């Protein structure tokens, strides 16, 4: 198989297992994002793919070749780092060409390829500068250039945008996406930023505590989280969670939190099988609907963000967040009514946290 494959990869430090039995297939041309909070093991996983950290057990295959025991430079990969990791004493030209020089490529050929990459990334005027004379965004381009020039079959990115300011980050995101579409190479990209994951990935791997929580498209990770961790990690403001159970109220199904019953609309038929079972209901702020038929709730605070506003509500003994358009005015202390879009809610097992029902 082309692409990258991890089979039963395990990592232990001093006898302490930090990652166990990771299995992952990355198809050729995928833009795979490893997403997770800091300390979830995503960088360790990337370093193992790169060969910078040895695996304790299992094997790693790149383009069908077992690379588990190979050095980083034998694996046909290139990597872009968070800190850019440009060689401070070399000019941009030498930085980009260094990997080719180490492989014994002739000087003319190196110059030609560096010039091509310079053109592609629009850094030709910077080629003779030192990294310290470049802005953060320019350094980032050089770091990408250093990876591109080698024409590897897999690119590894370790939080490449997190040292840039917000505006530049958005620009670079678009450029990375274009670059991927243009080159069609496999990319493995580590980030803790879900916006990057959502916008860039063809496939997202959500990691936590050294284990894979979910592998899916960005849309599905958002809409159909596999468990409570994924649901709470992806999405901002975070999903609302409410403990309780589904119960029958006449023809309708409501969610009984013990302190009150939240009305649901558009409940899928499968939900009926779950009635009475203790569980956690998850609903994103945009799936909380302001409606006259809803449950009475008190407005605690409204946070306008420009296009929307997020309203903090006291409902049935809990605090929940709902999204509303910017026009409506919510006064703190006033009352409103709210219900939940049952077609888009997620139900989690209260013990295991696994999703029982998703949209």
């Amino acid at each position, binding site marked *: 198989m082309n692409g990258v494959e991890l089979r039963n990869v395990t990592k232990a430090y001093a006898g302490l297992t930090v990652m166990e039995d990771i299995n992952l297939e990355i198809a050729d041309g995928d833009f795979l994002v490893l997403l997770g909070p800091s300390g979830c093991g995503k960088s360790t996983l990337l370093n193992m793919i*790169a060969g910078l950290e040895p695996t304790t057990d299992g094997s790693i295959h790149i383009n069908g070749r077992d690379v588990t025991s190979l050095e980083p*430079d034998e694996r046909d990969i290139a990597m872009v780092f968070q*800190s850019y990791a440009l060689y401070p*004493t070399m000019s941009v030209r030498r930085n980009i060409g*260094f990997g080719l020089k180490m492989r014994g490529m002739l000087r003319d050929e190196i110059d030609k390829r560096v010039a091509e990459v310079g053109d592609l990334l629009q850094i030709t005027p910077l080629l003779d500068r030192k990294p310290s004379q470049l802005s953060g965004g320019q350094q980032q381009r050089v770091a990408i250039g250093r990876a591109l020039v080698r024409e590897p079959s897999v690119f590894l990115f370790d939080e490449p945008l997190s040292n840039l300011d917000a505006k530049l980050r958005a620009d670079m995101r678009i450029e990375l996406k274009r670059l991927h579409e243009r080159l069609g190479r496999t990319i493995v990209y580590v980030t803790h930023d879900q916006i990057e994951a959502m916008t860039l990935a063809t496939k997202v791997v959500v990691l936590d505590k050294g284990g894979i929580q979910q592998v899916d498209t960005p849309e599905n990770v958002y809409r159909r989280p596999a468990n409570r961790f994924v649901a709470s990690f992806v999405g901002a403001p975070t999903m609302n969670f409410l403990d309780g159970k589904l119960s029958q109220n006449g023809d309708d199904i409501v969610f009984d939190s013990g302190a009150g019953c939240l009305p649901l609309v558009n409940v899928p038929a499968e939900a009926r099988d779950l009635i009475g079972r203790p569980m956690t209901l998850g609903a994103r702020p945009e799936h909380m609907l302001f409606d006259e038929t809803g449950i009475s709730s008190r407005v605690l605070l409204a946070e306008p963000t420009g296009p929307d506003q997020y309203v903090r509500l006291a409902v049935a003994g809990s605090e929940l967040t709902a999204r509303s358009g910017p026009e409506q005015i919510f006064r703190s202390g006033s009352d409103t009514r709210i219900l939940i879009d049952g077609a888009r809610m997620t139900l989690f097992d209260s013990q295991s946290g696994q999703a029982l029902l998703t949209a």
Partner: protein
Amino acid sequence: MRYNRLALYGLLCVAAIMILSPVFIMISTSLKSMDEIRNGSIFTLPVDPGFAAWSKAWFGDCAKTLGEGCGGLSSSFMTSVKVVIPALILSVGLGAITGYALAAWKMKGANVMFAALLVGMFIPPQVTLYPLIIMIRELGIFGTIPGLILVHVIWGVAFTTMMFRNFFKTVPQDLLKAARIDGAGFWRLFWHVMLPISLPILGVAMILQFTYIWNDFLLGLTFGGRAGQPMTVALNNLVGSQFGEKEYNVDMAATMLTALPTLAVYLLSGRLFVRGIAAGAVKG
């Protein structure tokens, strides 16, 4: 406020004078004649400054010495140069490579070895002096310049390793990873990436090692023998054992000549010396 400033500068100047006056006394004494020294005070400037004492200190006084040579410092100056330069290059080079290997390549036991080396820096040389003599004698280089060089490398490597190791520890891990992905192995990573970054620390290590080795006395005294007598040892002999009347002007001129190379390096290097010392890189 103004009186405060005045007092501040006053105190600083007093301190500076106290530090500088022995140096001043050394220089002015070396320019005086013995008659002037006997009749004047150490604080007075030479009335008729001359370099007679300097030339006597450098070339020696052939009328006074028995046996070969004239007892001047010129030959021991050459010995010091022949010892310092190779010892400097070898100890700094070995320290750079060892420090780099310890800092940049994750190895089991690297920290244990570094701690062991760090402790070695504080071992008084007297403790291992005799075994070292036997080792150097067994190698057949006792009392020779190569023997003295080897001893200086042995005693300097802990210090230079510490300097480079601590510096290379501050190099971001990402840079090392990037170089490994680019295909640089141990030596090419060192040569193309690490050494160019470490130029300032290399300068500091060179300057401090030069100062330490030039100023060494115990190792020169023990391992130099007659052939490899460095300048500090020669100075001590000159001052300690003179026939007839003591010539303080010659003593001071000889002292000045011995101090000049390190003094010059210090004054020319300025900030680097300060930086090296303030970086906590200090050897007793």
